[in-house]
């Protein structure tokens, strides 16, 4: 049984821990520099909401990067979908919906408009993903080029739809999706359910390990780990509840992050994504249809760009021509800080989220300190380079 030594896994996780430590250091630093303002629960709540739009992109980008590809179009695509959402809500849907359902109240029409907008925007994202994925996976155009083209096309389309103007107004219901909060009691209920799930999963794992005769850690160890996670979740909700509750987009982000993490770690698809990123030839020779896998990864990326676009419109409460500008770069930076390797095969969703949170924290902290925007860009650039250097240097020492 020596051959199954679970200790190896802990070593790999150390990387995630260093990332968390880096995040905590950055937080402490800003806490000190801003005289504690950084730690106000209001700011904490804002910080999380600020990271959400980019984080939808980072989550999808992680899978793209793991396959050894890149998607430069997501920022423009997000902006494009955002402008479509605004156009639908401000120009197109009010007339059509009023014509179809004259009996509905203004509020009812608004909610209906938001639902239709969300569906159409997700479909647009999906379609964009299908097109780009097909071009990359089947027509074999390198992803860098295909998505560079996509970036220009969507940026152009934004100007075409908006005719260079900002589009308003946005329905209240869509604004609520991006700006609202989960009622505090509901937040607590969600936490309670989450904690129960954490403990059940821990028990389930023990049962499985026992079933196949693998060594299991002492019960107290697993119990402690589950407790730590539970305390973190609870602590988080208590902090944001201290302000207004969990921001809605944060809930959406967490749900998507959990789903995609599950997809990456616990499904065939996820396995294939990592395998083909590590060695596409060997994966192909193992009888796996690598083209389909790459195709699906880009479809998911398109869909998540759709989510980002919708939230962006609700958050800004307008469709703007600059929407989503440079988001792709921030998303890629988040993934890379989070440990994804641009040569493929490596990366995690949680890493990408922490990476995005680090970037968002820098931006948020520096804004509170009233640092000029030009400094903000420079600092973010330096941090990105430093993070990757540390990663490279630590790898060198290991080998």
């Amino acid at each position, binding site marked *: 049984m020596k051959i199954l030594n679970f200790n190896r896994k802990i070593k790999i996780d150390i990387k995630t821990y260093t990332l968390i430590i880096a995040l905590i250091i950055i937080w402490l630093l800003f806490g000190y520099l801003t005289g504690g303002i950084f730690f106000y629960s209001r700011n904490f709540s804002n910080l999380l909401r600020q990271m959400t739009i980019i984080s939808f992109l980072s989550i999808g980008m992680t899978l793209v990067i793991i396959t050894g590809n890149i998607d430069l179009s997501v920022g423009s695509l997000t902006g494009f979908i955002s402008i479509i959402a605004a156009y639908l809500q401000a120009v197109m849907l009010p007339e059509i919906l009023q014509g179809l359902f004259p009996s509905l109240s203004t509020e009812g029409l608004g909610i209906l408009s938001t639902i239709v907008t969300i569906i159409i925007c997700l479909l647009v994202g999906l379609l964009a993903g299908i097109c780009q994925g097909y071009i990359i996976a089947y027509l074999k155009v390198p992803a860098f080029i295909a998505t560079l083209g996509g970036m220009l096309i969507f940026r152009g389309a934004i100007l075409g739809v908006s005719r260079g103007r900002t589009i308003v107004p946005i329905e209240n219901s869509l604004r609520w999706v991006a700006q609202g909060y989960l009622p505090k009691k509901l937040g607590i209920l969600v936490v309670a359910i989450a904690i129960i799930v954490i403990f059940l999963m821990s028990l389930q794992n023990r049962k499985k390990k026992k079933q196949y005769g693998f060594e299991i850690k002492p019960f107290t160890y697993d119990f402690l780990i589950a407790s730590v996670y539970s305390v973190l979740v609870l602590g988080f909700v208590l902090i944001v509840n201290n302000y207004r509750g969990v921001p809605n987009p944060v809930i959406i982000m967490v749900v998507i992050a959990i789903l995609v993490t599950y997809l990456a770690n616990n499904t065939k698809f996820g396995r294939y994504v*990592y395998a083909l990123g590590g060695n596409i030839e060997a994966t192909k020779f193992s009888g796996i249809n690598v083209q389909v896998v790459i195709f699906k990864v880009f479809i998911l990326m398109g869909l998540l760009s759709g989510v980002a676009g919708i939230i962006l419109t609700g958050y800004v409460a307008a469709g703007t021509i600059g929407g989503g500008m440079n988001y792709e770069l921030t998303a890629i930076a988040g993934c890379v800080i989070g440990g994804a390797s641009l040569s493929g095969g490596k990366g995690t969703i949680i890493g990408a989220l922490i990476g995005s949170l680090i970037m968002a924290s820098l931006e948020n902290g520096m804004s509170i300190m009233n640092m000029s925007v030009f400094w903000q860009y420079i600092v973010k650039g330096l941090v990105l380079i430093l993070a990757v250097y540390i990663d490279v240097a630590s790898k060198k020492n290991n080998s």
Partner: protein
Amino acid sequence: MKDEYILKIENIIKDFPGIRALSNVSFKIKKGDIHGLCGENGAGKSTLVKILAGVYPHNTYKGKIYFNDEEIEFTHFSVRQAIKKGIAIVYQELALIPEMTVGENIFLGREPEYKGTISWDRLFSDAKEILKKYKLNIPFAAKVSELSVGQQQMVEIAKALSQKVKVLILDEPTSALTEAEINSLMEILKYLKHNGVTCIYISHKLEEFFRITDKITVLRDGLVVDTVRTADTTEEEVIAMMVGREMKERFPIRNRKIGEKILEVKNLSAGNLLAQSKMAIKNISFDLRKGEVLGIAGLMGSGRSELVTTIFGEYGKHVTGEIFLEGKPIKISSAREAVNYGIGLVPEDRKKMGLVLMQAIYKNISLPNIRKFSNALSVDKYKELNECRKYADSLNIKTPSLFAITESLSGGNQQKVVIAKWLMSTPKILILDDPTRGIDVGTKYEIYKLINKLAKNGIAIIMISSELEEVLGMSDRIMVMHEGKCTGILERKAATQKKVMALATGTKNYSGV
């Protein structure tokens, strides 16, 4: 006495995380000798020569190295330092730039300059001179990608010689060479010896040691077993030292139980079908029975690998001919279809085509088989680990953990991982493309036994091999290929080395490099 030993290695200890690769290695190398270094995979040969060549700098190992009685410690840019001192290594995997010419490769990083620009005339005339001086028969202006593997090897050697090396280390130089190329390499080495160059020669082919080396040092598990004079020993003795036991037979005996026909290939051609000369394989027909081992012999470039990858769907739709599986005609245009038909392929280049090196061992074993452990929603990881463990145990894969990165394994164990992944898929037909290339004697024997066991269990096996003895020792029938064509299928009893060689060279005299 000063000049007798050019290299003295004393008490070298080198640790890798979790493994001691070298424990207290000491031996001496005489000036002008060809000194053989042999041992099973993981015995520490490559680690040792990498220390000598400065790949691992001085502070990463313990012990002392004397070069011409002067202690050497390579630190920064250590490979460069080593070359300056006069120690250079020619790796198993060639390190040339395919799109550059021979001359450019030889002088890479040391291009002769004239007022800040490269002096191409001098570069090429110097390259030509070196090639001529050491009788290396290679066109100096050819692109490296146009050369055969054997010629590329010689470019590497020329590159080392152009830097006036005194000690040339060759790490398994012949593993990818044809007989003729090996012969000319041997001639070159003899010529270098004549010119006072000392060689350290690593190989898995013992016969080569007895052709050219003066002394042989045998390593086992990071220790020096002994250094012997080649003239005073025998192959059997060396093998016994390497594995630590007597090897009775090179190839295990198998009880043959050959069953019904499972695969039939008729007039298979693949590649560029428009031009006869550009086809990878031409008009190949053969059949394969359950429990049979069909050996495929042929030189590098004879189309033997192309034949099996065609069956595995690599050429997609650029294929003509018929394939029958259990009597039914089938079309295979992708690896996925081949796997679904129950065909497994252990490819020629396990690092490139066989393994995802950066991933855990168990993930590699289960890669073609994940469907077995998963439903629509999830992979049952523990069931998967449990299955992988069974195969890893039964193949005796040497690793501290199934979670270890595949790259950390030795070549032989990596090959076992590739075999394990196909065994788990319970194939009807298993194709092994040169499965023992670059693998030590002990693991080779294990793989032979495994092949026999699989055949006994009714799996049909196609085995390509670069070693004639291996094909003759393992196969029930031997198919010989030459220039993409099948030049003959021999019964085991009728096959001899001479006959196979004659067919493999297309009866013409093989003129060599």
